[in-house]
């Protein structure tokens, strides 16, 4: 099965090719192509995954791609526990989201294009995960970045969508550029970008890698600098502080896109990359690259959790929640919790995709993103409510849902390796429970606050495309108020809800050998044993503590938003300027807009001024001088060069006139001259004899 793994990204790629060229013809049938391709990939991916579960050895295939002397760039794929479990997750979640999109995007004029982009995205993502080298990984990485850009701006007639896609692309580009530099640095150090070779070399400590670079007052080992440069990519792609600003805006895209790309897979690519390149980070002196990762993750988790508290847009809350959870994963990886961080990546993919899809179902029904205009939906949309609740409990970390097990792993690792990070992450976990409870309370409980007959809103993404279109499941006139979504949307929700419940069970202690959990046995980093680092064993007091924190968050939210013993505006007055600060996303976007966007525009204007007055002046000066010189040149040409040419002409003509009488046109004259010439030649040669 591992030998067939290279086929996994090819099926979605083929689907992309078919849909890109024949999509218009396929029309309504377009999703079947995409779903079929995804199903085949899923079968292959799960086969590969199960093979790894049953104890197959890791498999690497590679072939020389570009050979430059001793330096060979290879192309190939890696099948090991990490890549197999990740492709299994991607194909499953991706497939379900494809099915969901059939209902969600129905009636869109660019139906086939949507599925073409999604297929290309999956191809890129699977390539990135299965890659055997940083270079192939980078190719997949850029493809998913491109698809993200295309899908955020899928409703391309909306100005805000255009701005959001540009913001996403440019912001992630900052990180990608750093990562590209990092990959170049790797190539410079080791002469290859193969994972295996690089990691072995890092482990042994190459000469160039252990040299130090002086950066201002600090001396940084080259290997650490490289790891941090590579980490630039994940910072951008996974929405880590300070490059997280694009992710909330990316919610301009259709909701399935938010679920697939901006919750489950692409944003997790950064975490995956850190996990994949873990040796590079781990074998830095004192694991200092990991310390950076941990702190970036912690700051992100806390910051995004705080901002999420003050947002009203259901998708934005979920987006900040995603950022926060990605911060958790990074922090988990950073505090030597290799398994914990990646475990959270997998469980999070299920429940966050679930939450987004359920949110999409809600938006589909009420035609607004604002949670203040929802309410009481648990009665009218039972399936959506129960599945959303499952996702909520998983995210908040309530026993026995998936998030409980994986988040607890991260907190456990943090507790053992860095108490400060543990404290901050616990606070972030509390915030997670709080803002999610607020969201659930606003959206599903209380009384319905929206209009009885939600009108299609031409500015709402989900309505824009199908304004005026009323398919069989859009008959709002028949029902009063919001109603449940069709089965093609709710069935994927239920499947994902199932996984949100059970995906964490692989982390239950005792499921693996020696009393450990199965996931610890399956996903483990060999470097730990060598370095004498042992994963801390499950501890009930800590687990209970994190469960208590989650329940406390839910409780506080219940007091404020549920039973309303304390009114939310009282809380708002109580916290003073903190609320506007959080509501305006800590002004980070504002600062960026001022510094980078306006700064960039001002710089451009300045450069334009310089261009107009400086460069153009210089160009004009050069032009003027050139004209002058060419005038002189022309004079020279007319009188000197032409004069010479004419002179030669006159000379030739004169000579011709002189010689003309010789040409009598009588053959016997010529023969006589020839004979006389012969005589002369013979005489001369005789003379010389």
């Amino acid at each position, binding site marked *: 099965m591992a030998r067939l793994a290279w086929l996994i990204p090819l099926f979605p790629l083929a689907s992309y090719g078919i849909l890109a060229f024949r999509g218009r013809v396929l029309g309504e049938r377009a999703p079947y192509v995409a779903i079929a391709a995804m199903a085949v990939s899923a079968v292959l991916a799960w086969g590969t995954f199960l093979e790894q579960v049953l104890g197959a050895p890791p498999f690497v295939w590679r072939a020389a791609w570009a050979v430059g002397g001793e330096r060979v760039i290879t192309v190939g794929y890696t099948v090991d526990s990490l890549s197999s479990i990740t492709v299994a997750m991607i194909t499953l979640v991706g497939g379900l989201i494809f099915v969901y999109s059939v209902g969600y995007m129905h009636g869109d004029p660019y139906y086939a294009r949507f599925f073409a982009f999604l297929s290309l995205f999956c191809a890129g993502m699977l390539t990135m995960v299965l890659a055997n080298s940083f270079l192939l990984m980078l190719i997949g990485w850029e493809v998913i970045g491109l698809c993200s850009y295309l899908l955020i701006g899928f409703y391309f007639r909306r100005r805000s969508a255009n701005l959001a896609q540009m913001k996403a692309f440019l912001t992630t580009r900052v990180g990608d550029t750093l990562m590209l530099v990092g990959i170049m640095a790797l190539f410079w150090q080791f002469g290859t970008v193969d994972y295996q070779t690089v990691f072995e070399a890092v482990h042994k400590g190459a000469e160039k890698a252990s040299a130090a670079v002086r950066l201002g007052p600090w001396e940084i080992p080259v290997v650490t600098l490289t790891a941090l440069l590579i980490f630039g990519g994940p910072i951008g792609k996974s929405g880590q502080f300070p490059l997280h600003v694009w992710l909330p805006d990316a919610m301009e895209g259709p909701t399935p896109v938010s679920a697939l790309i901006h919750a489950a897979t692409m944003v997790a690519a950064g975490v995956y990359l850190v996990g994949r390149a873990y040796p590079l980070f781990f074998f830095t002196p004192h694991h200092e690259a990991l310390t950076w990762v941990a702190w970036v993750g912690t700051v992100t988790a806390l910051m995004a959790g705080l901002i999420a508290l003050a947002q009203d847009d259901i998708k934005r809350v979920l987006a900040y929640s995603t950022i926060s959870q990605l911060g958790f994963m990074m922090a988990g990886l950073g505090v030597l919790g290799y398994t914990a961080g990646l475990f959270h990546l997998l469980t999070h993919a299920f429940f966050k995709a679930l939450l987004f899809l359920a949110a999409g179902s809600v938006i589909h029904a009420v035609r607004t993103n604002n949670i203040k205009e929802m309410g009481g939906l648990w009665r009218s949309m039972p399936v959506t409510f129960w599945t959303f609740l499952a996702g909520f409990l998983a995210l908040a970390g309530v026993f026995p849902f998936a998030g409980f097990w994986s988040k607890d792993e991260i907190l456990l690792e943090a507790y053992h390796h860095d108490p400060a990070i543990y404290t901050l992450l616990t606070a972030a976990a509390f915030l997670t429970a709080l803002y999610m409870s607020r969201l659930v309370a606003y959206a599903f409980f209380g009384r319905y606050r929206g209009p009885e007959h939600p009108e299609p809103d031409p500015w709402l993404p989900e309505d824009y495309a199908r304004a005026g279109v009323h398919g069989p499941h859009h008959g709002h006139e028949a029902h009063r108020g919001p109603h449940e979504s069709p089965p093609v949307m709710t069935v994927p929700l239920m499947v994902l809800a199932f996984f949100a419940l059970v995906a964490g069970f692989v982390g239950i202690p005792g499921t693996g050998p020696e009393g450990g959990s199965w996931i610890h046995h399956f996903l483990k980093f060999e470097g730990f044993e060598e370095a004498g680092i042992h994963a801390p064993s499950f501890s009930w007091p800590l687990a209970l503590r994190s469960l208590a924190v989650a329940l406390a968050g839910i409780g506080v939210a219940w007091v404020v938003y549920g039973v309303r013993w304390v009114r939310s505006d009282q809380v708002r007055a109580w916290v003073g300027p903190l609320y506007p600060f959080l509501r305006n996303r800590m002004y980070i976007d504002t600062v960026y807009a001022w510094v980078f966007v306006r700064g960039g525009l001002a710089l451009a204007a300045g450069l334009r001024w310089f261009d107009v007055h400086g460069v153009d002046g210089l160009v004009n000066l050069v032009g003027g001088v050139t004209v002058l010189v060419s005038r002189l040149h022309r004079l020279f040409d007319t009188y000197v060069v032409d004069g010479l040419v004419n002179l030669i002409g006159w000379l030739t003509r004169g000579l011709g006139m002189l010689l003309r009488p010789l040409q009598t046109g009588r053959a*016997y*004259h010529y023969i*006589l001259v020839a*004979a*006389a010439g*012969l*005589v002369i030649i*013979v*005489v001369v040669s*005789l003379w010389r*004899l």
Partner: protein
Amino acid sequence: MNAEALAFCALAAMVLVGGALVVYSRNLVHAAVSLVPTLLGVAGLYVLLHAEFVAAIQILIYVGAITVLILFVILLTEGATGLRVRQRNEQVPLALGVCGALVALLWVVLLRVPWGPAAGPLPPYNPGAVGRSFLMPYVLAFEVTSLVILASLVGAIVIARREE
């Protein structure tokens, strides 16, 4: 003076007299007819030089074909009108000088070259050697010559044909 020398002298006299008549005769028909003894004399010299095959060809082509052709053309054009028009152009003295000088120079060269003793006994004459030479080492010249013949044949017909 043996027979060979006698023959040579006779043939040489025939050639020179004939040649002189060719050049000298005002009547073109006389000139053309005088060509015949000249060419026959040369053929005789070929026989003396053990080139019987070349001599036969000389008689066939020169005497048989070319002379007759020349006579035809003379009759077709001006006939024996040479008696009434001037036959020589204005450069006779100059031409005499140049030709004399050339012949004198050739003699000077001839006298200067130390001619070796006459070759020993000649191998038996073998016309087949000529044929082999044409078909082995000089086949290219042979073929080119045949091409020239073809071209001149066609050319002569095209040029001399009366235009419609």
